[in-house]
């Protein structure tokens, strides 16, 4: 069985986001990381390979990105992926990314394709679904667990009030969310040392148009000062709500 884990290169989730103008992210000083869902997906894929070395022969990671995303890809290799593919293009929007991934997946055989529920940069939550449609593949959304039991791939999903377990025929796309792994795998020294020698294939992007274009980013208004009213000055509160906030 071959596993593909799609990884996005995103700003660290504690980054204070700034924009250069209103259309471009200001990338100065940003630390880039593997998208957290993707990192957990990869962790689970590695756990599966360690538990079932006879069933899982290879874990590949794929990223649509420029050379700037290679440190992130190398980290994935240090964690335990066997090889990597980078589609050499700026990931402009969800359809573009999904279509680029689909082009690569069509030319190679994978049994399970992991994508994160969303990416920590734009939170679009659409690549996994689009990928399934473009490849005409089975997809399972909101995956919170995956196991191999008696040779079958058993996928868990969180549903209202409980958990659903599915026996899923490969190949399929698993769009993963919370629960897939507890903590991301910390790369071991040996993994870090070997990461540079593992294959990283760079492929040219397919000729694909963007379907959307970012028109503008708008930052939320800064929070106003908090004012405290006590039981003794309820009348003042009513006055403020009426005259200043114009809510009553």
């Amino acid at each position, binding site marked *: 069985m071959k596993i593909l884990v799609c990884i996005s290169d995103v700003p660290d989730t504690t980054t204070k986001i700034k924009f250069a103008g209103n259309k471009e992210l200001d990338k100065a000083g940003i630390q880039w990381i593997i998208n957290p869902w993707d990192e957990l997906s990869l962790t689970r894929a590695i756990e599966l390979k360690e538990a079932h070395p006879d069933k899982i022969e290879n874990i590949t990671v794929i990223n649509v990105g420029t050379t700037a995303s290679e*440190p992130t890809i*190398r*980290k994935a290799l240090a964690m335990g992926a066997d090889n990597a593919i980078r589609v050499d293009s700026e990931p402009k929007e969800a359809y573009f990314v999904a279509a680029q991934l689909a082009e690569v997946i069509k030319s190679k055989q994978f049994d399970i394709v992991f994508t994160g529920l969303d990416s920590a940069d734009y939170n679009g939550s659409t690549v996994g679904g689009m990928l399934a449609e473009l490849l005409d593949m089975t997809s399972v959304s909101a995956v919170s667990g995956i196991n191999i039991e008696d040779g079958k791939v058993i996928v868990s999903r969180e549903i209202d009030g409980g958990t659903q377990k599915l026996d899923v025929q490969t190949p399929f796309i698993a769009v993963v969310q919370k629960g897939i792994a507890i903590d*991301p795998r910390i*790369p*071991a*020294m040996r993994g*870090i*040392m070997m*990461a540079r020698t593992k294959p990283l294939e760079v492929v040219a992007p397919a000729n694909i148009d963007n379907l959307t274009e970012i028109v503008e980013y708008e930052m939320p208004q800064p929070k106003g000062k908090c004012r405290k009213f006590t039981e003794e000055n309820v009348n003042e509160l009513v006055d403020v709500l009426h005259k200043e906030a114009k809510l009553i």
Partner: protein
Amino acid sequence: MNFEFTEEQKMIQQAAKDFAERELLHDVIERDAKSEFPADRIKKLAELGFLGMMTDPKYDGGGMDTVSYVLAMEELSKIDSSVAVVMSVCNSLVNWGLETYGTEEQKEKYLKPLARGEKIGAFLLSEPEAGSDATKQRTTAEDKGDYYLVNGTKNWITNANCASTYLVIAQTNPEKGHKGINALIVDKNTPGITLGPHEDKMGMRSSDTHSVMFNDVKVPKANRIGEDGFGFNFAMKTLDGGRIGIASQALGIASGAFERALHYAKERKAFGTEIFNHQAIAFKLADMAVKIENARNLCLKAAWLKDTKQPYGIVSAMAKQYCADIAMEVTTEAVQIHGGYGYVKEYHVERLMREAKLTQIYEGTSEIQKIVISRSLLK
């Protein structure tokens, strides 16, 4: 000059940071209070390869450079120096000593399991009456033909209980002074070895520190490191590298305390504004930042010299002395910035201050480092 870290160095730094935050932070205060050694966490650290990170891959180590080691030591020490010191002793003293001066047979038998993290090592030099003056070893290693008979007591031994492999410095020919000293590899489970109780220390309370007593302990001749009488030289050479580890530990203690003080100063309000906006506090933080930057540069310079096979003993002594001394200063100011909160355990800085004190004492006091540095100025 290139101050950029490589991708691998950044990855190791991040791995150590993730490990410390995920595995050590949540119970570090409790372990400190109970003097509890975190054997389970040391096992995980070993599995990740940190305990043998600098050993050559041909001896099953990670093959990482000293710069990576400094970065990892700093990150671990920001949160838990009791764990960081295990890594320091294993890498800088035991593994390095065996790799540099051991025979191939010794490396096969002892270094490889240490480098894989399957076993832990300890370095036994200090004695009740031989600390800074390490030439006055009272532990004897009497030459009995095929073996040495070891008798005596070693003090303040880090990893004494958890280690399987001891490197023991002992006197064989007292008439030759320090040139009669030998370094021996000793299995901890050899008959005649007993441990004193766990030391109840001021700081680094959960590190595994005991005295070790030797009573007619037989050690095969094949376990001697180097030629007869090489032991003192071996210990001094090994401690040159050990200083880089403890300097990085002190740096981590200082930067950990600084980060907490800076965060607190931006949140805590007094006289109508965050205390960072009071110059008395802002200048303290500025002074702390400068000291930490200097300390980091000294550690990395010493590491770079070692990695590029240049003499590093003097700069490592400078790094050890400076980092330990500023760790004491920075942690004291971090407690001051926290005010009353700094004096209670919940805010970590009082613990970091207690930990800082030890870095001025062990693996060569600050005063001994100044002897090393000043003597080099005469040459």
